[in-house]
């Protein structure tokens, strides 16, 4: 049993290290880039990987390594931002449902049922069409499509925590529902929320890339993995490195996030295996 956990942790360790590297890269990106990731240099276009440009250059002569480093910022930000939107809405709505119950619960859950009926990508597509293109809007679009999952998770957990004696006691003592929620219930549902968030970050990055493919991503010339992958796709035959590098970055991040998320789940709450449905 112990050895299993340790070995589990080994995968998680790898994931965590990779994530840390990506995170630090994003944080210090401006200091790390060897070239200006935005400046076009037609004379250096489509250079294959060389010592000068370890990952080659794209059709505009921009250094792909520099764009990959800089792109980490926006890609992670999109993922985090989307999850933040879903998290905020999920916690507020889920807590209210679980703690207040009654009509609030019924109403919100019906709304969530309705939201569930619209496929995530389709919803994101319509949201971007409503709000227009751009990083923040993509974040919102992806975030909105994640809300139902978060609300359901939080509500479900609140309901099970509520059965606990100490919450009952607090309610019996006449505490306000908000206080019950924040002081007693929330701390107990943090673990599953963290686990869901990790998986949701991965999902957001992928969905963001798909929106770029449909022409609804962030605005050029901002480096972002999804949009770079999408831009490079017509060069797959001529210059594979343009799309492969951002594509590999996305894969690496998503795999790492999942490894960490898995370990967290096993550690924090083994009952949560149904979360794999994200």
């Amino acid at each position, binding site marked *: 049993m112990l050895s299993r956990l340790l070995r589990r942790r080994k995968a998680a360790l790898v994931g965590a290290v990779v994530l840390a590297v990506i995170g630090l890269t994003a944080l210090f990106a401006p200091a790390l880039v060897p070239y200006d990731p935005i400046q076009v240099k037609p004379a250096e276009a489509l250079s294959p990987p060389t010592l000068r440009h370890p990952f080659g250059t794209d059709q505009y002569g921009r250094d792909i390594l520099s764009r990959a480093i800089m792109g980490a910022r926006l890609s992670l930000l999109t993922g985090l931002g989307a999850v933040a939107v879903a998290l905020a809405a999920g916690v507020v709505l889920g807590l209210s449902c679980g703690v207040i119950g009654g009509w609030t619960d019924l109403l919100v859950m019906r709304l969530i049922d309705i939201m569930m009926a619209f496929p995530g990508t389709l919803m994101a*597509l*319509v949201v971007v*069409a409503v709000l227009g293109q751009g990083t923040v809007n993509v974040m919102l679009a992806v975030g909105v499509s994640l809300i139902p999952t978060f609300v359901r998770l939080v509500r479900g957990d609140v309901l099970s925590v509520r059965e606990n004696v100490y919450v009952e006691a607090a309610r019996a003592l006449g505490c306000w529902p908000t206080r019950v929620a924040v002081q007693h219930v929330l701390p107990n549902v943090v673990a599953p929320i963290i686990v869901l968030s990790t998986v949701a970050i991965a999902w957001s990055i992928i969905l963001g890339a798909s929106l770029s493919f449909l022409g609804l991503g962030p605005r050029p010339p901002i480096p972002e993995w999804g949009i770079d992958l999408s831009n490079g*796709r017509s060069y*797959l035959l001529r210059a594979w490195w343009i799309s492969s590098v951002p594509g590999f970055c996305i894969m690496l991040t998503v795999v790492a996030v999942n490894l960490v998320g898995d370990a967290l789940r096993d550690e924090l709450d083994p009952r949560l295996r*149904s979360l*794999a449905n994200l």
Partner: protein
Amino acid sequence: MSVPVVVGVSVVVFSIIHVLPGDPVLAILSGANATPEQERELRAQLRLDDPLVVQYVRFLGRAVVGDFGRSIFTRRPVIEEIGDQLPSTLELAGTAIVIAVCIGVALGLLAAVRHDTWIDRAAMLVALGGVSMPSFWLGLLLILIFSLQLGWLPATGQGGLSRLILPAATIGLNYSAVIARLVRSSVLEVLQNNYISTARAKGLSEWGVTLKHALGNALIPVTTIIGVQLGNLLAGTIIVETVFSRRGMGRLAVTAVLDKDYPLIQGVVLVSALGYVLTNLLVDVSYSALDPRIRHRDVAEA
């Protein structure tokens, strides 16, 4: 439980036309050197001036009989447009589910039975790889490998299994990870349970035990997942249909949104939402068939 959802969905779909930016009448006339009279005429025909409630009731009355109006761009009834595209997407989604289940069950089972070996970790990594590649990239790579380099399968179009395999595999690979993990953990759970030990004591072979009991245990969560994921599966077709030049609801949805073809957007969204509600109803019903003990289990909690 499904009825209020359907009503809610219809309200949302109806309001799309009033939420989206831009004036539908101007959108229809874009590109033409339209005169103000023509604009007025069209406005009167669409009757956008009626109170919203009146417009909603009219919308609902028509939707019930399958009348979503005509597409702004093609001038054809929306229901016909959808009827043209839906079978192709159902075919694609169905095949994708089969592929996802096959790969997912195989990987999950392998990982569980060889639990804690390198095979376990490799299987899970493969599953994870499938879900972590944006589907348009995966699809293009599959075309370049299996169509252009190896020449095994055609890259585009409809008709026959050979044209279905690559696009369905693209979606299937994306969803097999979820199933693989579910199968793995379900099977592991069963393997650690007592009744397996009992069965083992009775002298059944290890594989026989695993298959019979463990897969039975995995059946319900996998069924749930297929229902919950159906929406995402449909959304996956949006990307894959473009890459593989297949017709279908996904491409219809993208065109509708990009062209701001409001009646078409409404029709597509409504039909996908209804599809979701219907599938989950079926999943609900299938629970009792799969396992009578959990007839009353709430899907929402699963």
